[in-house]
């Protein structure tokens, strides 16, 4: 399921091109510019019990090692699977940050647009070595100490699994979108995608490595809000 994201992005681009040729549907709505836009919002109700990743049992250690790592906040990401062409135009966020704090990546889930440069500052007293072997973006930042930061630009849409080469329990997700219609849920699981052109869309809820649920949503011609809730079991 997790591999759907890049495919979806490609498919979305193809759909947009097709829609453009026919000069109709969401593609035209996106180009119209001044047309009213709406909002897709709702809540992702996570009922799946997730256990924090733990350090490997340190039987070779002489002591208990460092203090317990921080609790990971596992946010969901909601996005439109087939976006109008306008969604692919213009720039979105150009920089973002994923910190390393108490042997935890903060945030655990980061959603960005293609072209975004993500900083990885080390706020711990120990070394970290951020890396990814994901096909979307393969990188290794090497070992660096507290107060230092390294950055990577993400140019391809898809999912990037991020790890630390020194601390096996550290992991995070970076979801890279080719369009701007996505949102990360807040602490209550709420999300809001603004400025969505009128049309009918498929909205997907991604959580911890997989698309858990997809639902249709319609933004009326006069804008307004479409409420779409998800339940992740």
């Amino acid at each position, binding site marked *: 399921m997790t591999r759907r994201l890049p495919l979806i992005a490609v498919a979305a681009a193809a759909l947009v091109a097709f829609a453009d040729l026919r000069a109709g549907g969401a593609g035209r709505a996106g180009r119209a510019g001044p047309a009213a836009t709406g909002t897709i919002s709702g809540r992702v109700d996570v009922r799946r019990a997730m256990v924090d990743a733990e350090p490997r049992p340190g039987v070779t250690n002489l002591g208990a090692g460092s203090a317990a790592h921080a609790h990971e906040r596992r946010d969901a990401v909601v996005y439109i699977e087939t976006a109008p062409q306008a969604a692919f135009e213009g720039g979105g966020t150009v920089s973002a940050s994923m910190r390393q704090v108490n042997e935890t990546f903060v945030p655990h889930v980061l959603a960005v647009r293609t072209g975004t440069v993500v900083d990885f500052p080390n706020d711990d007293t120990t070394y970290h070595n951020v890396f990814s072997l994901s096909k979307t973006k393969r990188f*290794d930042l*090497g070992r660096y100490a507290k107060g230092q930061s390294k950055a990577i630009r993400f140019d391809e849409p898809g999912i990037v699994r991020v790890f630390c080469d020194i601390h096996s329990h550290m992991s995070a997700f970076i979801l890279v979108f080719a369009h701007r219609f996505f949102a990360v849920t807040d602490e209550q699981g709420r999300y809001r995608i603004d400025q969505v052109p009128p049309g009918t869309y498929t909205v997907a809820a991604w959580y911890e490595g997989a698309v858990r649920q997809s639902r249709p949503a319609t933004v009326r011609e006069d804008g307004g809000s479409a409420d779409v809730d998800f339940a992740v079991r």
Partner: protein
Amino acid sequence: MGATAPRAAAWFGWVLLACLLSGRAAAQDEPRGATATPGSRLTVAGDAAVSMAPDDDAYFNYSSDAYSVLRLVRLDASAVLRLGSRLSLLGDVRAQSAIGPGQWQVRPYALFARIRPWPRKAVDIQVGLIPPVFGAFSRSAYGNSNPLVGFPLGYQYLTSLRPDALPASADGLLAKRGQGWRVRYPVGNATPDHGVPLMDGLRYPLGVELHAGVRPVEASVAVTTGSLSTPDTRDVGKRPQISGRIAVRPTAGLVVGASASRGAFFARSLTASLAAPADNGTNDQRAIGFDAEYSRGYWIVRAESIVSSWRLSQLDLLLSDHPLRAFSLDMESRYRIRPGLYAAIRVDRLDFSEVCGSVSCLPWDAPIRRVEIGGGYSIRRNMVVKTAYQYNRREATVRRTSGLVSAQLVVWF
């Protein structure tokens, strides 16, 4: 290469292929860490390694398990059960077999209680089958911590010294130079058996350890069975091994450590057969060690040295140059070339003090030089395939050199 080598190569190939296919099938579904129950009361992890190489007919890589560390299959499962903020139980069970005709050995590698009297202070007491406090390598010998396939000489190479048997003279000792994988002496146990390494990194002693840390310093002291060369032996009487280590981390990425150990080495079954010494007598292995590690960016550099001496009062009559001493030094470096790909090298030497026989004075065992160069590639985050070339040179008259190509697949979960 022996008759079993093609079969081993085929097995390695099938395992690698299966892993590659599983890696392709779930490229995004990388493991996140150890498996834990809700509340993290129980955490379980494991790793598996398949190492293969041609037959080591010069026995450079044979360990105290009596087979080559370059030709084995190993499965390892470890767990920690947290019984509150002050007490944890930790265990590690290992099953391993030599590739070829070897039999599977299953044994608890570590099994101990970790007590933290003051939950907010970095003071721990470990009781049971505990990790050795001496040195650095034995605590990073897991497949994914060791950048190469082989082990450092000081932790693996079998010297011609045995805890339960002795030569009758200095000439008898010198005659066995470079034959530590299978040596027979007339005094004590006359059955042929392997000698001992300077430090046996494959076995954990039974005992108690106190560990405390106040940044940037941490220190450990342990009272355990055996000695560095024979940590799990019980045949040395009631005298315990006392060992300690102090490590300093002056800056991120740099660790400098010093270790010391003293424990009874020669077996009671041997000393009982010898004439009693005039005084209480000496029977021990003493060792000091120094280690350092520095890492930055894509580099890790390590160095470790062990100086060991073995003493037995009764040996004074046989060897005028008593005690027997040995010195090991290894330097290792790893460089990450690109994501998932690294190159590594280890340069290693093992030297011995001289003993004078009736004809000449020579090191009591044959000095060894070793260079191992190789690299590894991460197929997935938790799956590494390594390959290395190892060149060994022994200053002895028989089986002097050996060049071995090895490969290893390591999977952790």
